[in-house]
């Protein structure tokens, strides 16, 4: 037999490197001592106190300082924004991809090229302009102004077209046109063919795009951090960054509990669907 021990050794070292921050944060979340300096890879006393404090909405350090931490609110905001952005991204992208895949019209090639060109200028590069635009739309539609979740979602949708449309169009192209044809013979309109024939068959690619968009939005800090200004409106990245930028060394246990609660659902989702995600990623989507 060939020697394989070195492969196991390499794997062991790499896994240690990969997992030690994870083990560390789990241990810290359950550790009775809150402070950063007492954190370790193995908790001394296991307790749920950190979670209780986190969910209570404020945290008190050993020094007696109290800090408002609307963690549940941040969590809900993040979930709302990421879910809405993912669903709408899929919807808008699928509609456009369908047009590019099934119709032959003037300007089609141009349209697809334009999408690629615009995609090269990531939305967040224009953050100064976005900030100034939302400042002004807020005068007309308060719900689309600065410091609103709807405003943030709408800004994210500005990046919905682009690589996603290419990805979905590629998949739609593999769905036989004969299916459309037979539906059309039966009297279906293009809208009916889209909703009734193409979309159900394209479920895998819709899931991939939705998931990648969900995770990317969940991670987004630059735009959210610029637009959302009050604690109650912030998403998890913005809120947790604020948490850490405070005197975090003393409330490290509570922070760790927050990290754990936020990470678990995403990790489970990712692991369950990793096959699909990786397929999407190798075709041009980049996860944040």
């Amino acid at each position, binding site marked *: 037999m060939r020697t394989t021990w070195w492969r196991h050794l*390499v794997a062991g070292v790499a896994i240690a490197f990969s997992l030690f921050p994870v083990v560390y944060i789990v241990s810290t979340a359950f550790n009775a001592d809150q402070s950063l300096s007492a954190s*370790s890879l193995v908790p001394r006393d296991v307790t749920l106190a950190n979670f209780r404090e986190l969910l209570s909405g404020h945290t008190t350090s050993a020094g007696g300082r109290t800090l408002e931490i609307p963690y549940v609110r941040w969590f809900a905001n993040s979930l709302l924004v990421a879910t809405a952005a993912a669903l709408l991204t899929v919807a808008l992208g699928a509609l456009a991809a369908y047009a590019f895949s099934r119709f032959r019209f003037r300007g089609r090639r141009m349209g697809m090229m334009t999408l*690629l060109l615009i995609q090269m200028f*990531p939305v967040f590069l224009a953050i100064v302009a976005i*900030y100034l635009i939302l400042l002004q739309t807020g005068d007309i539609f308060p719900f689309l102004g600065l410091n609103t979740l709807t405003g943030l979602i709408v800004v994210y949708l*500005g990046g919905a077209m682009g690589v996603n449309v290419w990805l979905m169009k590629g998949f739609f192209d593999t769905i036989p046109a004969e299916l459309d044809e037979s539906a059309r013979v039966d009297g*279906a309109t293009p809208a009916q063919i889209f909703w009734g024939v193409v979309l159900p068959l394209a479920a895998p690619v819709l899931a991939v795009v939705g998931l990648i968009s969900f995770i990317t939005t969940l991670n987004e800090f630059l735009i959210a951090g610029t637009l959302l200004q009050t604690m109650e409106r912030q998403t998890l990245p913005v809120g947790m960054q604020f948490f850490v930028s405070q005197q975090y060394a003393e409330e490290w246990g509570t922070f760790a509990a927050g990290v754990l609660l936020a990470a678990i659902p995403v990790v489970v989702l990712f692991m369950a669907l990793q096959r699909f995600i990786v397929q999407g*990623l190798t075709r041009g989507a*980049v996860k944040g």
Partner: protein
Amino acid sequence: MAPGAPATPLPLGLLPRLLAAFSGTTGLVIKLVFLSLANAMAVWAATVLVRDSRWIALSVLVAATLAIDSVYLSRRAVPLKFLVPGSVFLIAFSVVPVAYNVNVAFTNWSTGHLLAKEEAIEGIERSYLAPPADGRSYLMAPARDGRGQLVLILVDEADGSTFVGSRVGLEPLRRDAVEIDENGAIVGTEGYQLLEADELASLDTDLSAYTVPTKDGAAIRPEGFETAVELRPTLRYEADTDTFVRIEDGTVFRDNGKGSFVAASGEELEPGWKTRVGVENFTRLLKDPLVRKPFFRVFVWTFVFAGATVVASFALGLFLAIALNLPGLRFQRTYRSLLIVPYAVPAFLSLLVWRGLLNDEFGLVNRLLPFDVPWLFDPAWARVSVILVSLWLTFPYFFLVSLGALQSIPSELVEAARVDGAGPWQVFRRITFPLLLVAVAPLLIASFAFNFNNFNNIYLLTAGGPQASDQIVAGSTDILISYTWKLAFEAGKGQDYGLASAVSIVIFLIIASISALSFWRSRSLEEMR
């Protein structure tokens, strides 16, 4: 290539039937509801725009709404019906911001240049005031009028006449309405509520900026809490020559074409105004020593950071993939699952955790190591830390990708080389690696472009720091995008929207060249049917 390309005929499941049901009359109803909703919003926006007399915005709104309505109400233009929803967002939040951004890059929009010119002239007239030699001074008491507005009760110290001053102007007050105690302080007024001491303290800044305009551009302003003085303008604006003249010595301040009134001596009046300055922001990047040096440093570091992250992650990922890519290796699946955990955890959380792990004083890494490393405090070490953490975040992706690519290389090729007497290293160098690189190259480029703008990895770990000096916005680990963001939004050092937009255009040019390279390589444009 496509996973599970459908070969089966239309499944008669619940979902398609449900969806089909929504497309008949119901579909029409849904369409009309959405369309009326969009129109209602447009009408509402129009009323606001009319109120503010923003006619250009209004005409754009009307044209866009009519266009959308005609697309959905006509029977033709079917593809457009599918393209409009996404395009509306694309235009509103991608194309327009980009165009706006380009526009801002050619202005001097920054702290001190935020206003329109007329507003700046008013601002100068309001702020360049001084007490004249023969000026009046007043006893003063801040008070609230019947509607709760802040006003000043004033008693002329020369003749004892009494006034009430507001932001609108000065009104005389009956003498017996003001009650003055033996120390000469105002203790009561008829019709006005004097402010208490604790309310006064909280109004400090409001009060010191409170100005009561009087005749000929002069004004009365509080000095402390109990007295006020009359101020007269020191500058005179001459509309026909568009200049300010200092009354005292006749110095002329002219519009310098860059948004400021400047005297021959170089003295500048504040505030300035927002105006177009041509390519000045771009020339500043190359010439202004205060901008050029940090910009150049950030520019180089951005390439180093993105390049090092991609190369290191690919090298580690590929190495692990080779080590674990042995058919029948025990625990292979377990190893694979554990190794991609860093990739599955949301990056923003990992970055914040790493910030704690690398804390110089209390961090676990320094406590485990036999010596202390200034991970985030020392400029050089901070750069090492940023790359190290980025490696941790990125190598699982390249591990997965390399594993997939390795497994798709036909084994006959490797076998054939073996038969011809090639050693394992030769097989790798001549066969496996070149083939793998063909598959992975576009992903390497994409990852480089992504990390080039990886704001999170920098900002959440080091916030761009450590700071080089108080004068310079850019910290030691700032990359171009975080530098841009700081220029625009970091308060304290002044905000420079114009320069920030110029830098973001530079980033765009770089990213565009990288993408062009990527297209050229993958020739994805040729595949377009």
